């Protein structure tokens, strides 16, 4: 099967060979082998994807070392880390990075917790489970852009739903997205609304893949339902949590669409600027291509720092 076996076989032939194996036989075998025959299947998509993703990343990296600002062609003769230095010294970059971090941690942890709660709620023998699951997951079918519109209206300082409730309770109405101190929390809340269903589905699949006799064994062991979940079932969802957390974090890093769509402008509500919006703004609004590319590179490194441990974890689990 494997190609390297072919070479090994010829290197270490010990016993006397009854038949002389010529290089032609081996070449024919190699050309007939599954490896050669199956390579076009993965090869073509791989090349297309490789150019788009890795070619793109490489080109982006190259531009980030120049001072290209949209005039003529990028000048590659004089490369430097100037753009990175500028970014790290820039207050708005640092603020965006900090807000990005808050969004990442807040959004991921709340979505996971809520998703787990919902999964346990649905897992424990109820009627119309399928329908309820479908409704909980419904926001996932919407685009960021649509979600942004819906929540823009929900948060509307005039008579948005949130303020209808708040004023009904006797408080003054709040400008949720206009107040820089709560805008980020409001964004996180809206994103949680959209994505906790996703976490729920992943946890639910994890719960259902557990053999039912685990529940029964715990029951016979004398444990109550709550104890069974806490001590037996939830600890076994580690794999599912890691998978869901990674995907959620990457959503958080990519939350550009949502923030753009709220204002319909390059600049999101005050207090919610993140690296993704900053990058697009610098590159596409101000034409600071090299600076934008440098921010994009740092965003990529941030993503890789999430993915790399995940891939190592998956590899250790033998899941690759």
């Amino acid at each position, binding site marked *: 099967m494997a190609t390297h076996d072919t070479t090994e076989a010829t290197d270490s032939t010990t016993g006397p060979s009854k038949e002389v194996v010529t290089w032609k036989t081996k070449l024919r075998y190699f050309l007939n082998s599954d490896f050669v025959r199956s390579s076009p299947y993965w090869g073509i998509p791989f090349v297309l994807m490789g150019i788009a993703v890795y070619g793109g990343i490489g080109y982006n990296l190259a531009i980030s070392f120049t001072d290209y600002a949209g005039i003529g062609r990028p000048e590659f003769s004089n490369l430097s880390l100037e753009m990175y230095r500028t970014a790290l010294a820039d207050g708005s970059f640092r603020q965006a990075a900090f807000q990005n971090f808050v969004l990442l941690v807040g959004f991921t942890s709340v979505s996971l917790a809520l998703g787990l709660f919902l999964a346990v709620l649905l897992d424990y023998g109820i009627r119309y489970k399928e329908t309820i699951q479908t409704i909980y997951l419904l926001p996932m079918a919407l685009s960021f852009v649509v979600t942004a519109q819906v929540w823009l209206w929900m948060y509307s300082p005039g008579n948005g739903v949130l303020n209808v409730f708040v004023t009904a309770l006797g408080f003054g109405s709040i400008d949720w997205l206009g107040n820089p101190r709560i805008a980020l929390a409001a964004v996180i809340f809206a994103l949680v609304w959209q994505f906790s269903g996703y976490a729920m589905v992943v946890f639910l699949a994890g719960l259902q893949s557990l*053999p039912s006799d685990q529940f029964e064994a715990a*029951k*016979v*062991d*004398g*444990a109550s339902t709550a*104890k069974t979940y806490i*001590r037996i079932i939830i*600890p076994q969802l580690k794999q599912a949590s890691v998978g869901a957390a990674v995907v959620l974090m990457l959503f958080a890093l990519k939350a550009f669409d949502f923030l753009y769509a709220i204002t319909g402008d390059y600049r999101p509500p005050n207090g919610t600027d993140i690296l993704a919006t900053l990058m697009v703004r610098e590159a596409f609004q101000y034409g600071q291509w090299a600076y934008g590319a440098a921010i994009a590179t740092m965003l990529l490194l941030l993503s890789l720092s999430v993915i790399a441990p995940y891939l190592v974890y998956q590899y250790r689990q033998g899941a690759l």
Partner: protein
Amino acid sequence: MARLALDDVTKEYRDGEMSVVAVEDVSLDVADGEFLVLVGPSGCGKSTTLRMIAGLETITDGEITLDDRSINDVPAQERDIAMVFQSYALYPHKTVRGNMSFGLEESTELSDSDIAETVEETAGMMGIEDLLNRKPGELSGGQQQRVALGRAIVRDPDLFLMDEPLSNLDAKLRAEMRTELQHLQEQLGVTSVYVTHDQTEAMTMGDQIAVLNEGTLQQTGTPLECYHQPNNLFVAGFIGEPSMNFFDGSLEENALVTESLAYSLSPDLRRDIEAGTDLVLGIRPEDVRIDEPRTDGQRFAAEVIVVEPMGNENVIHLRFDDAMAGDEFIVTTEGVPTVSAGDRVDVEFSEAVVHLFDGDSGVAIKNRTLSFSGTPDEVIP
């Protein structure tokens, strides 16, 4: 220590209009310290019965009592039973120690150090003390089996329930664990109910066997009782490997006439049977004698089709001359095979060893006569 009784227990699954009776009017009595094996083909209701005893299924009708106390409405958590699952159902994220302590932590008031001590003691008894800090995924099938047993034993329950605990082991290990489980049960003296579809396990392990088929109890008795004195055709065919040979026929004059042979019955035997009654003749493979050809009323000529040597015994497939191509019967002989495929031989069905069953109801009319030696008292009450 407990005595378990099932009284007309029925389990019915209703799904809208559909209703399936999984277990019907099963009554059982398991004495204190007894080892009862529930055996039957898959889908016969044996696992459902066990799960009702465990409290994992509700009971549609009837009553289950433990030491004369009804446990119908006692939740599984409070029944003081331990169960070994077919898949072992070990908690994969806990160490062996964690697995074994869990039940004690949840169902007793023991202190942590008492629990640790009990767990270690039991682990020592099961020979798994070296494995206490490992996780189930790192253990072999046989070791997981031991841990599952250890987890059940450590709680010192009133009742042990085991649901095909050996079915995931290979043949050698299964035979080994079979003996070990018996040793263990004798040592602990805990009342046990053991479910299996494997008649060998039932025969070799049980103090009592309860044979189930299609949700109804066919027979309860000691292993040898079920083997030698089956109540009906089902039990006769299910217990014993290779299976009992059956020949369908009817009583004509003084003989049982089947497609391929006329088996003369002694007057004693046919006195109570009406002529023309459909009968089934049964004979165990080891009770057939093979000889040189010389046919009379209970000896018949046959041809050897296949000989399967097993070393200590041989399974010989034979066919009567008039029988159809697929209609074979089986004889086992000991030692080195003396016949080979294609040989013509005589077989003798001695009247002492044949069974007769009613062709319609399958109920046993006559069982073989027994000629035990040694100390057979109690194996057949």
